[in-house]
């Protein structure tokens, strides 16, 4: 068995330590003796058929503009992948672009991939950005399980219809600072504003994603537990700092 982690626009959409998410996925598999492959995709390159985990990260405005035409051309490709249960993690700009649209302060809209039923509105520079440490409660990971991270976004995201959130805000702003939701979940695809990056300090979450990916090719394979001393120290330190535990 080999797990192919595919990093879309690794050269154009790589901010806030996104590399750490990729590293976490690869290392945690390698430490369990699972073969891994990292495929870095750029403009015009096809997403491999054997993609096991798809990652799309954050971007500065200029890079996002460069990416948009190419990304829109991949709508069907990515939609099929997700509908078939493909595992994906979409962070910050990647998360927003998976939605229906992103609306700027002047009312102009950037159309998204329309795979997540959500929309993002940026109220403009007169409104403060949603920045700071964040903790969300994540029941699907287990009882009293949390995700910790750092958020920094101007856009306020609103989930529509029956879109599930990733978790409920315990500290911080989350999707929009109002409805206490953070992130989104649809099939095996997850979107979030949490960076830090999010996977190294949330080992259970990282293993959850790995488990989903492995389940699709070798359902009987069990992920052995890692000692995770350093990971949990960072995780718990942030929980204590924000007085969650």
């Amino acid at each position, binding site marked *: 068995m080999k797990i192919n982690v595919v990093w879309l626009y690794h*050269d154009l959409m790589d901010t806030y330590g996104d590399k750490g998410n990729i590293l976490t996925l690869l290392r945690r598999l390698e430490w369990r003796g699972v073969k891994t492959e990292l495929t870095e995709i750029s403009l015009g390159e096809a997403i491999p058929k054997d993609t096991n985990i798809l990652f799309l990260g954050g971007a*500065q405005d200029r890079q996002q503009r460069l990416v948009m035409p190419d990304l829109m051309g991949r709508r069907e490709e990515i939609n099929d992948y997700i509908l078939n249960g493909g595992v994906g993690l979409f962070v910050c700009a990647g998360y927003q672009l998976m939605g229906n649209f992103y609306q700027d302060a002047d009312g102009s809209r950037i159309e998204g991939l329309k795979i997540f039923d959500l929309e993002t509105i940026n109220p403009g520079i007169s409104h403060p950005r949603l920045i700071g440490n964040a903790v969300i409660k994540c029941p699907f990971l287990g009882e009293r399980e949390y995700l910790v991270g750092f958020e920094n976004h101007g856009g306020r995201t609103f989930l529509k219809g029956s879109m599930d959130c990733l978790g409920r805000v315990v500290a911080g702003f989350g999707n929009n600072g109002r409805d206490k939701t953070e992130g989104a979940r649809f099939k095996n695809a997850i979107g979030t504003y949490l960076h830090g990056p999010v996977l190294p*300090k949330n080992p259970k979450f990282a293993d959850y994603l790995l488990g989903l990916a492995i389940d699709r090719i070798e359902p009987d394979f069990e992920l052995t537990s890692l000692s995770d001393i350093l990971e949990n120290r960072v995780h718990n330190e942030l929980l204590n700092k924000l007085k969650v535990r």
Partner: protein
Amino acid sequence: MVFHLLTLLLLLQLFLITVDAVERVIIRNMASQIAKLSYTTLKSIGRAGGTWPGEIALRLDKSYLSNQLGKLPQGFVLVTGTNGKTTTTHLLVEILRVSGLSVVTNSSGANLPNGLASAFIEAESQGKTPDIGVFEIDENYLPLILDQANPRIVLITNIFRDQLDRFGEIETIKNKWMKSLYGKGIQLVLNSDDPAVAAIGLLGDLDSKYFGIDFRNALNFTNLKSPKDSGFCLRCGEKLNFKIIFYSHLGDWSCPNCGLERPEPSELGGEYSLLLPGNYNQYNVAGSILASSLLGIERSVALTVSESFVGVFGRGETIDFEGGAFELHLAKNPTGFTQSLSEVRDALSPVIVLLLNDKIADGQDISWIWDIGLEEIYIHPQHLIIGGSRANDLALRLFYAGIEEERLHVFDDLHRALIRASQLSHGEKVPIVATYTAMLKARKILLGKSLL
């Protein structure tokens, strides 16, 4: 009757204007006196320098700084950019002082307007009358200072992605700078090897001279990989080609689409034989030499001073402590960190100290530590002593980079961390790589003093 009323009103008006003017003169003088008093007070309790005197002066008299800058007989130089400001500023100051000029400068990297104001107060309190000023200024405050007075030279070292939760994007900063520089007749001194910085000269209608690395002797350089910040053309947005990368996004660049390319530098670095550690200091020296020559200094003088320069507060500075010695390296972004680590790569010390804080001056979002190219660097010292408010995050990062858990020693208490490092050093000089406030704290402990 009406006539008397009008006369009365006029006299009243004149009276108020006079009082106002007198008040302003008084306040202006008072501002300077009060600020000097605060400086002397702070100095007497051992907390010299810093930004409080300047802050007080500016609050009492908004035009304090512009007046002081305007009074300098030979004008002033501003140094800005992401990395290298402090070293470049200090080196340039040293070159000018050796040449016989009295220079006012902000010494401790206090690079906001109150830091510049404090520099003038300090000079005045020491009875100095400076001929010329050289100031490092924070990237975001360059336009503010340019609004107040025109420098002779603005030197821009580089633009790196840095502290994303604080500052805007590279393009935004570059555009802001260009807008504030336009039409003022300022001489620009720019890094030819940094596409965004060079673009300021190439795309703006601004008088520019360039410094860069002599790539024809490229074989002498170590090519370190580090994430690219602005590998895209600032004119057309196309991904840039590099014939050679010196480090990160600095190198011999050109745009395959619109033809914009690295301009020819007037001052070539790369071959200076320096006491300062690090390849990146070749740039700082080249910039300082070029700026000084534009101020009329003989190049041979500038070169001699540069080659004997041993470093600044926290930038390669060595401090003795508890029978051992520490060499301080500031790092606040992936590139700076990588460069500092590459410097200590060949260090003989069996221990290295790494300190990560997340206060405002360090950047509260520390995810950049995952962008440090740790996988491409072999960290030679066996023991890594890790401290600072986000020590655990740094330890985790190093662990994922392949450093064994046994080599990672996390300390809550910085004093104990430095003692332990001394013990493990076997008399070798121990490198410390730290973010800004962690470096201040370490320096305070090592020197037994306190800095504002």
